[in-house]
Structures are given as C-alpha cells and as structure tokens.
C-alpha cells in the first residue's frame, strides 16, 4: 500500500438513492494492469469516472501516491494530466481536426512547443494507424476510427496511469488486436492501466489483476489465472460461464 500509485478507499457513490458503488477498496501499484469486468450497469464506468474525479464520490477517498485528491481544482488538473482517461463515447473535440485533438492538451497543459506536440501526436496516431487522417473532423470518422484517435490523444499526454472505458468496444477484430498490442506494449514501458473491458481473453492475457464487479461491489479481485480458472464466487462463475464455455 505504501508504494501504490492510486488507492481507492471505501469509495461509495449514489445517484439519488440509487447506490451505484458500495465501499470500493483497492490499490493500484506501479506497472499494474488492472482489468475490471462485470455485467452492464454494475458500476464500472462510474468507478473510472470517480477515479478521474469526473464524479464526486458520496463518501470515501482517492489517493494518488498517498496524497488524497480533494476538491482543489489546481490539484485535480495536475492529477488528471498524470491520470488520463479514454472514454467509451470517445469525446473527441468536435471543433477540431484529428491532429488538433491530439495537440491541444499537450500544448495547453504540458506547454510543449508546437513541434514537440506535433511529433508526439504523429507518433501516437501512427501507433493506432490514424496518422493519414490528421486533417479529418471527428464527425467524418467511423466509430472505430474515433476510438483510435481518442486513445492516441490520451497517449500524447504521456500519463502515468491510463484509464480505459471499454476502449475496444467499437473496434473490428483486426483493430482490437492492434490496439490491444499497443496496450500490451505500453504495459512494458511501465505505464499503469485500469481497463474496463468485455474482452475476457485480453483481461486474462494482459492484466496483472482482474476485478469482477457486480451491483456496485467488488466481488472478486485476483490475478487472472486464479479468477478465470477458479472463480471463488458463485456470481463470478455464472458471469464467466458463457466465456469459459464459448
């Protein structure tokens, strides 16, 4: 716990009286790749949003390198520039081209020079195979193309931790493979990742730990070998049944 990058402590979140997260507790160490799986509506996206401070928790704490991230805007900004997020709905800036999307935050937050920002953008756009589309507008891209640009945009910030909310859900198998390869590669560079995913194979192969969520609880949190081979919880078993059988 001492050297955890992010610690989530007793995190609860309710919308009105609909409790979505219930006393979530877990740590993320450097270089860890944590996959969060679970059925629709179990609170996975909400958890990621809380970690990125896009939702304010009802109770509980988020710590970054041991320091609690409170409500001071400046701290939150700095924290977010280190802990990036790739959204399920892409959230590309509609008023900018692909290239501008990838350069905006490096220019305005990291204060890179135009050349540096451009080089980084191209590097990461190449990584996801979107470099030829630098002049396109987000509305002119297909779903998969948007998702890839969103990933490249986050990578440009050189974050310490990257949160992914179903990053491959809109990709075709070819692309899924490529993007997952990119992510595996990133893992070797020491980038820490928390990935909400429905790709069980990926979770099994890549994650250092897999977390199974259900109805706002962490039901199981174990190395994938254990969780997939030998799920302790009945709910986990049921959820994985289809996957294991398939």
């Amino acid at each position: 716990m001492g050297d955890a990058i992010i610690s989530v402590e007793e995190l609860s979140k309710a919308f009105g009286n609909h409790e979505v997260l219930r006393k979530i507790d877990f740590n993320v160490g450097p270089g860890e790749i944590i996959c969060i799986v679970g059925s629709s509506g179990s609170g996975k996206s909400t958890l990621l949003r809380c970690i990125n401070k896009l939702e304010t928790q009802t109770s509980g704490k988020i710590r970054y390198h041991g320091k609690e991230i409170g409500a001071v805007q400046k701290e939150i900004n700095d924290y977010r520039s280190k802990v990036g997020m790739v959204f399920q709905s892409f959230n590309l800036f509609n008023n900018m081209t692909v290239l501008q999307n990838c350069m905006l935050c490096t220019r305005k937050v990291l204060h890179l020079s135009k050349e540096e920002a451009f080089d980084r953008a191209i590097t990461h756009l190449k990584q996801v195979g979107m470099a030829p589309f630098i002049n396109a507008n987000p509305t002119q891209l297909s779903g998969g193309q948007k998702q890839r640009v969103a990933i490249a945009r986050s990578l440009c910030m050189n974050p310490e931790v990257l949160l992914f909310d179903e990053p491959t859900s809109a990709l075709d198998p070819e692309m899924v493979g490529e993007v997952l390869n990119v992510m595996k590669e990133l893992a070797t560079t020491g980038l820490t990742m928390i990935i909400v995913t429905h790709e069980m194979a990926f979770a099994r192969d890549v994650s250092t730990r897999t977390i199974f969520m259900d109805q706002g609880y962490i039901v199981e949190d174990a190395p994938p070998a254990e969780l997939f081979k030998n799920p302790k919880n009945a709910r986990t078993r049921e959820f994985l049944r289809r996957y294991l059988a398939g």
Partner: protein
Amino acid sequence: MLGFSITDPSNSLEWMIFLAKKYSGMFLEGTWLTLYIAVAGTILGFLLGYIIGIIQDIRINEGDSILKKGIFKILKAICRIYVEVFRDTPMIVQAMVLYYGIRQANVNITPLFAGVMVTVLNTGAYMAETVRAGIGSIDMGQREGAWAMGMSPMKTMIYVVLPQAFKNIIPEMANTFLTNLKMTSVLNVIAVQELFMAAKTVGGNYYKYFESYLVIAVIYFVLCFVFNRLFTFLEKKMKKTENYALAVEYMENP
C-alpha cells in the same frame, strides 16, 4: 443624386424622394453615426456578454481557498445584478441616468461615447443570457474529454466549449446586432444625432414624419440586409466541414 427633381410632392412616394434628396446629407450623417454606435456597441457588448456568460458558468469549487471562493461569489453576484438591472429597464432610462449621472460626477463625456457605452452595457446583459444558453447546448462529454486530460475548466471553456457554442450563437448574434441598429434610436434622448434623430428633424420640418420614417426604413433595410448576409456567410463558414485530404505521407504500405 436622383436624375429628376420633385418640387411639389403630392403622394407619400414623392415625399420620400423629395425629403431623401433634400436632406441627403443629414440622413447620411445619421446613418454613419448609427452604424458606428451599433457596430462598436455590438462588438464590445458581445465581448462583455461572453465574459459575463463565462463567469456565470463557473462552478465554485468546494476545494478552493476561502478568498478565491469569496471573490468568485462577489463577482458572480455583481454579474447577476448587472444582467438583471440592464435587461429589466428601458434603454432610454439607462441612457439618461448614465449620461447625466456621469456628467454630474464632473466627468466630461460626449453623447456619442455615452451612447456607445449604453449600447455595450445593454447588449452585454442580453448576450450574457444568450451565451449561457449556447454553452448549455454543448454536450458535457466535450468538456469531460478535456478535463480528463488535465485542462482547467477555463481553458476547456475557451478552446473547446466556446468555439462550438459560438457556432450555435451566430443567428442570435445577428438578431442582437439588428436590434441594436434600431435601438440606437433611443439615444437621441442624449442628443446623439443618429438616423432616427435625422428622420425626426426632417419630419418635423414638413410635418411629414411618416414619409421621413419610410426613408430611414429603406436605409435600415439596406444596412440590415447587408449585415445579415455577412452573418449568414459566417454561419455557413463555421458549419461547413470540408472534405479532408488523406495525409498520404503517413500512409503505411500494406
């Protein structure tokens, strides 16, 4: 001017031509002043409206220091009062209070300056609401995308939200500008010699107010028409997403 001349006008059209010809200088001066005030007042008013709109959108952060919270609260309160007062009172009264008020404080301002100022303040108050609505119509996801990468709310506003809101606001800005062109008329209460003042002067000379007003209606129509085309052009330009060229230099060979 016109090739023929009417010395004894007998119907409204002839009166219009007669008056327009005889007082062309006065109408032109009025047009120029009206344009000057409307353009200067509108541009600065838009600016003010954007600033107020943005300030009103700021969410005070629980985690901020008491000082910062206090400053923001006061700033927001001032903005709220300003918007309320200037939207809720007639511009003619604003003009009188401002002009004579400032002069009573022994500061010498010209009617023209006061006129521009009143137009700016009035426009700013209305635009603040327009901007607020424009900001509200932009999907939250756009902001979250920027926040999640550490952009401050203010930078997010400037680089991501406003450019998109601007597009939706253009027709409203056109509406406001046209209203301003015509609202300058109340400024003759502080002796600004704008277009309506010209019409009243000319109309009073012959007791032909209606015909004189018709002359300036034509002038207004031409002005508004031209500016409308400008706004429409701007809107089209902002809405258009050009077909992009693939950056072939980055294509990988299969």
